[in-house]
């Protein structure tokens, strides 16, 4: 018989160099290829990037003060020129004379901050809870899943409202209020995936190697449920932005004078819908665009990570 080492070497020859092939394409070509395959997701991604840049460089992009009232220019029409600052209100001004464009740019900060914080914290806690629930099984799984059932029985906005009503309004509390309903949603989806992973022998193999439960969960199971996790995360981003806007619109979220899109809608929609429609239209456009972009991106992520759902 041939010594093992020689035959093993022969085995390798055949399957060599796959990695090198994959590595030959530079990153920008691969990016373009990705964008071709997922044009909608790519456009969503572009909008997200623009919003991110807006949020990060808000100070450099705008020239009006974002929070100071200027009663002289109350409800100024788009195109009005501010005589002292010698600046144009490109999108008009709101009922306190604040430039709408400036507030929308700063509003991106609030929206994205709340959106990302809630989505990341919510889905990560859900991830750990879901995997632990699937891994331990038994009564732990039972208790966790019944709690999840209870929380999921409430519509998202109702639950968020209940949390804000308990804690009081404010950015921090809005984040908590939006994060809490996300946890069980993610936990449920991740658990179903983790249940399948749990039955694959490498989890038993890890246990046979004497690893602790925490290690098996974090190192061996969590990386294998990254796909549903990322899908949930991206879908939460849009939802969180919409939820924050809704809460702010209802007066339960971010408080004046912090610029937030929902808050801007609230101030403008009811009273000035006819006399100064721009006050409500532009924040509305910003919200729609943001949610739309995140949803497109989220769909793209799902299609890429979960081939079973791919329609083509």
């Amino acid at each position, binding site marked *: *018989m041939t*010594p*093992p*080492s020689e*035959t*093993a*070497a022969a*085995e*390798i020859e055949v*399957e060599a160099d*796959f*990695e090198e092939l994959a590595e030959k394409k530079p990153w920008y070509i691969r990016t373009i290829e990705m964008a071709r395959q997922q044009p909608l997701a790519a456009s969503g991604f572009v909008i997200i990037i623009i919003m991110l840049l807006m949020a990060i460089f808000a100070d450099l992009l705008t020239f009006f003060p974002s929070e100071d009232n200027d009663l002289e220019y109350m409800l100024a029409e788009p195109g009005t020129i501010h005589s002292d600052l010698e600046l144009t209100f490109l999108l008009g001004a709101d009922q306190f004379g604040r430039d709408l464009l400036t507030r929308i740019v700063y509003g991106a900060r609030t929206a994205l901050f709340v959106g990302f914080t809630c989505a990341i914290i919510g889905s990560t806690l859900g991830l750990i809870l879901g995997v632990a629930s699937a891994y331990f*099984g*038994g009564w732990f799984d039972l208790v966790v899943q019944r709690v999840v059932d209870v929380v999921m029985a409430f519509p998202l906005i109702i639950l968020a409202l209940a949390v804000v009503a308990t804690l009081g309004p404010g950015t921090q509390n809005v984040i908590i209020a939006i994060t809490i309903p996300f946890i069980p949603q993610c936990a449920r989806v991740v658990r179903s995936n983790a249940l399948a992973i749990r039955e*694959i*022998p*490498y989890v*038993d*193999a*890890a*246990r*046979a*190697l*004497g*690893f*602790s439960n925490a*290690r098996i969960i974090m*190192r*061996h199971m969590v*990386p*294998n449920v*990254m796909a549903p996790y990322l899908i949930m995360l991206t879908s939460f981003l849009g939802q969180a932005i919409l939820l924050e806007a809704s809460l702010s619109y209802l007066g339960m979220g971010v408080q004046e004078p912090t610029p937030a899109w929902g808050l801007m809608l609230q101030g403008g929609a009811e009273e000035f819908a006819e006399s100064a429609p721009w006050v409500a239209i532009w924040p509305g456009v910003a919200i729609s665009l943001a949610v739309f972009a995140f949803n497109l991106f989220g769909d793209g992520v799902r299609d890429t990570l979960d081939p079973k759902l791919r329609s083509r």
Partner: protein
Amino acid sequence: MASLLEIDKLKTQFFTTAGVVKAVDGVSYTVDEGETVAVVGESGCGKSVTAMSILRLIPWPPGKITDGEIRFAGKDLLALSEEEMRNVRGKDISMIFQEPMTSLNPVLSIGMQLTETMLAHTDISEEDAHNRAVELLGMVGISEPERRLVQYPHHLSGGMRQRVMIAMALSCEPKLIIADEPTTALDVTIQAQILELMKNLTRDLGVALIIITHNLGVVARYADRVNVMYAGKIIESGTAADIYYRPHHPYTLALLKSVPRMDQQRQAKLDPVEGQPPDLTMLDEGCAFRPRCRFATTECAEGLPSLETVEGGHATACFNKDQVAATMKEAS
């Protein structure tokens, strides 16, 4: 001298809605240091459950070790805390699984998986662990070990993965390796290589090996001693020669007859074991093999034959063992 591993009247049961499954029902055997012991039997006879019981990896619910003792190097494994047990797993006793394709984590590189075990169980530095991983891969016959370490399981073929599994099993210098059907999922050509490798490595390193298999060819060539299991019990045990040339249990005899042989005519018909293995929830007080046994007498329905010594280390659990032995002699 005390054995490395002593299993004494082990009972593992699964409490299901359909009843209590006595998967392992009073199994006793020993493994000496450096010895290779085979556990043979058909699917569902409790051989894997016995192995999982040794490492206390039976999932509860529904499974539970209800009775018996497992002593490893003087320690009572069933009395250890979960924490202490974790230090035994992977370090003192390691396991090689049936499915090399799924026993490695697809998202971690070979190197990470190899070094993780060492880092978890010993005070080795990362650099030393890396060097040891290279050395281990070389030992199990993988070329370019440095390059392999950064690759992922999907880069490797089944045989290569099983080699990696063996390297992982050896990484903490265990005293005992349990191989649960290590070659079942592999190509026939690779099977022999893997077995040869395991045999050589365990012999060189003085590691005891339990091979769980249903392949009698494996048993004949690689095992020092053989335990044949049926319906959760050991029904015959002895050296490979005892089992092959002097079987005293009708089940062992039937197993041997059901294997194709090179020295027979090509037209010769195989003689399979008729019937199905028994439902482990509904065993009566008689011998479990009785319904499929051509030697069965009324005595077999009344009581359970116990494992009795035939000669030396050869023992069998059958009332009619002399007839069985006589049949074997006639045949050969």
